[in-house]
């Protein structure tokens, strides 16, 4: 369907929905690289105006990637909850933004309508939202998930402890793990990005993490972030797998580039559920996403990178994840050029994921060839803290020595807790207190703690 806006004597014409969505998107490097951006600033606003007039119902009939050739499109259409959508069915995208900002859209209502929203509806409304709208709306969404502790409760924020090491050295990993725990991090997950992809090496790391957890009775979940097929093999071998990790994208072709499809995710999900390792809940999938992943695989079908990203959330949503992490600045400046683009993308990802009912966290990060620095990350960290992000990443000194990029540090998380009063998952907070590492509010020095002998187990 052709979409048209007339501004004075100038008539703007957008050939189809995906073109309209792309042209309405705030400019970013990946869309410029793909040749999808508006030709002028005026054309962008014209596209936003046309988009604002579009009924939400239209998204159920015009798909951006064909149903016949893409299983993500099929998932979106086939799992759409018409009953949940009914209260919004009369709205345009512009009305939808107004409704989201209104007092009517409270936490309970937003959770109730989430199954009725498609990724494209959510992407569309986010393109009409300023950064403050993205913060305000996300803050109203509450997504609570559970495995061995409770994530996403109001006024709380988790941290993924990321103790990576370039050669997966057990002592090196244990040292970073100790550092993080002593700083009160690790409630979201203790998750290692392994350098190796050999199943034996991964198994060794799984046993290392599970050994520490059991020895100190830590109410936490662990994960070694390897390919879903490797995790499945390790489950069959009897390894202690808490969470199943996988990177996911918003088109079938991009997922094929990751070597996955929905059936494989389903199989791994079932296998991990059968282990019954969660103590307070059974959310056990951990997904990572990031704008630009479909384009970098040449699998974006002419769809802008932010819309592709929100489609990845439809994949994630299907498996009731514990954690979804948008690794926003990792992909590099070809997709998000500078701090401004990274900040905007992170706020979009967080808000769109939350609107779809996902437990969104963010790897607030950048690479050394992006036009960004620690100040940009401080700004984004503060914004996401205000927006109610479920979790952030914690890496020693913000420097990931395995992946070669900068994320947030344990200190950064403490800063956010200090200025916003954000607390940890309640079970984990109790554990820290029982170990005399915290007085319930602030960290204690921990000298003499039995945890200091953690590395001996490695």
């Amino acid at each position: 369907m052709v979409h048209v806006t007339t501004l004075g004597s100038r008539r703007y014409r957008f050939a189809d929905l995906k073109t309209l969505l792309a042209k309405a998107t705030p400019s970013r490097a990946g869309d410029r690289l793909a040749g999808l951006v508006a030709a002028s600033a005026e054309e962008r606003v014209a596209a936003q105006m046309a988009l604002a007039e579009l009924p939400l119902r239209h998204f159920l009939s015009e798909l951006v990637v064909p149903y016949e050739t893409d299983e993500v499109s099929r998932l979106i259409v086939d799992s759409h909850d018409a009953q949940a959508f009914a209260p919004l069915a009369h709205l345009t995208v512009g009305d939808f933004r107004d409704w989201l900002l209104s007092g009517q859209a409270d936490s309970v209502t937003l959770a109730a309508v989430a199954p009725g929203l498609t990724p494209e509806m959510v992407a569309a409304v986010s393109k009409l939202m300023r950064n403050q709208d993205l913060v305000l709306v996300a803050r109203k969404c509450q997504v609570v998930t559970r495995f061995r502790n409770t994530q996403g409760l109001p006024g709380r924020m988790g941290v993924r402890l990321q103790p990576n090491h370039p050669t997966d050295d057990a002592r090196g990993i244990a040292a970073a793990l100790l550092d993080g725990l002593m700083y009160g991090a690790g409630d979201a997950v203790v998750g290692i990005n392994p350098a190796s992809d050999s199943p034996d090496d991964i198994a060794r790391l799984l046993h290392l993490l599970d050994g520490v957890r059991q020895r100190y009775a830590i109410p936490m979940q662990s994960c070694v972030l390897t390919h879903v097929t490797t995790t499945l093999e390790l489950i069959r071998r009897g390894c202690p797998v808490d969470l199943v990790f996988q990177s996911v994208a918003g088109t079938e072709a991009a997922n094929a580039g990751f070597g996955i499809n929905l059936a494989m995710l389903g199989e791994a999900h079932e296998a991990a559920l059968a282990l019954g390792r969660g103590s307070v809940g059974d959310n056990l999938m951990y997904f990572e996403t990031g704008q630009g992943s479909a384009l970098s695989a040449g699998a974006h079908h002419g769809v802008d990178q932010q819309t592709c990203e929100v489609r990845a959330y439809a994949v994630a949503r299907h498996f009731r994840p514990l954690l979804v992490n948008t690794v926003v600045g990792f992909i590099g400046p070809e997709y998000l050029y500078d701090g401004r683009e990274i900040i905007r993308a992170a706020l979009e990802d967080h808000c769109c994921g939350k609107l779809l009912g996902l437990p969104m966290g963010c790897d607030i990060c950048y690479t050394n060839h992006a036009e960004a620095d620690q100040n940009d990350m401080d700004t984004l960290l503060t914004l996401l803290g205000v927006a109610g992000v479920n979790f952030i990443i914690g890496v020693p000194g913000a420097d990931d020595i395995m992946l070669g990029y900068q994320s947030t540090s344990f200190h950064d998380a403490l800063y956010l807790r200090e200025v916003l009063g954000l607390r940890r998952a309640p079970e984990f907070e109790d554990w820290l207190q029982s170990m005399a590492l915290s007085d319930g509010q602030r960290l204690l020095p921990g000298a003499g703690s039995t945890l200091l002998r953690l590395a001996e187990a490695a």
Partner: protein
Amino acid sequence: MKQDILRLCTAVAEDAWSAERQHTVARIALGRSGVSLPTRQTLSFALDHARARDAVHGELDMPALARALAGLGLPLLQVHSAAPDRACYLQRPDLGRKLSASSRSALLAAAPAGGCDVVFVLGDGLSARAVASHAPRLLEALLPALRREGWSLGPLVLASQARVALGDEVGAVLGARMLVMLIGERPGLSSPDSLGVYLTAAPRVGLSDAARNCISNVRPDGLSYPLAAYKLMWLLRAARRDGSGVALKDGSAAEAAYLALQAVVGVQQGAGKPVIS
């Protein structure tokens, strides 16, 4: 009063687990000022980031590199990718993978009749500093073995605003049967000068990463020159026989000669992930 001020001056809370630092180069046990990074640590991070940024934006000093390579006895050619400057290079990887029109014609004119066995391209990539520091030394370690085994060598090609795949076009134009790209990797905070080595058999335009083999993190504190040269020689021989790419698995590290060399020059510190394409 004086005592109070002295106490204020030592407001950094040190961490009780600083001994763990011997097990990792990760920034652990940094201590806290309140909940924040102590001044010393925040400046140390800033310095490392500054060096990495300078490495990304530093230009390849062509005359200096040419001087450093003069002793190798190979003709030198300079080329430029289709990305005119760094800002464009960073946002348009497609242009960094393509020769500029004038560089392409210059190379065509210089192509050796009948081609050659191997061409080396030295590309700035994301760290010109890495190429300038390590490429000449790696070549010094490698060329004697290649010459002993009778490989015919094409010119050394120095490429600016280059991505890995640019080498394939250079190799195709020069009729190289094997192309080796030596290129600056994306700088990490602790490694602003890490060199990547990419090998393509039968190079041509349009190949994907899957068609290449990679040796990452070549630098004195990572994979040392003799070990990198040994690995590269191993891959060159294997790729001449079986072709390059994901099907070719680097088996050099299991060889007795490699282990003997490793015993002399030391173990690799760890590569992390290759970080450029």
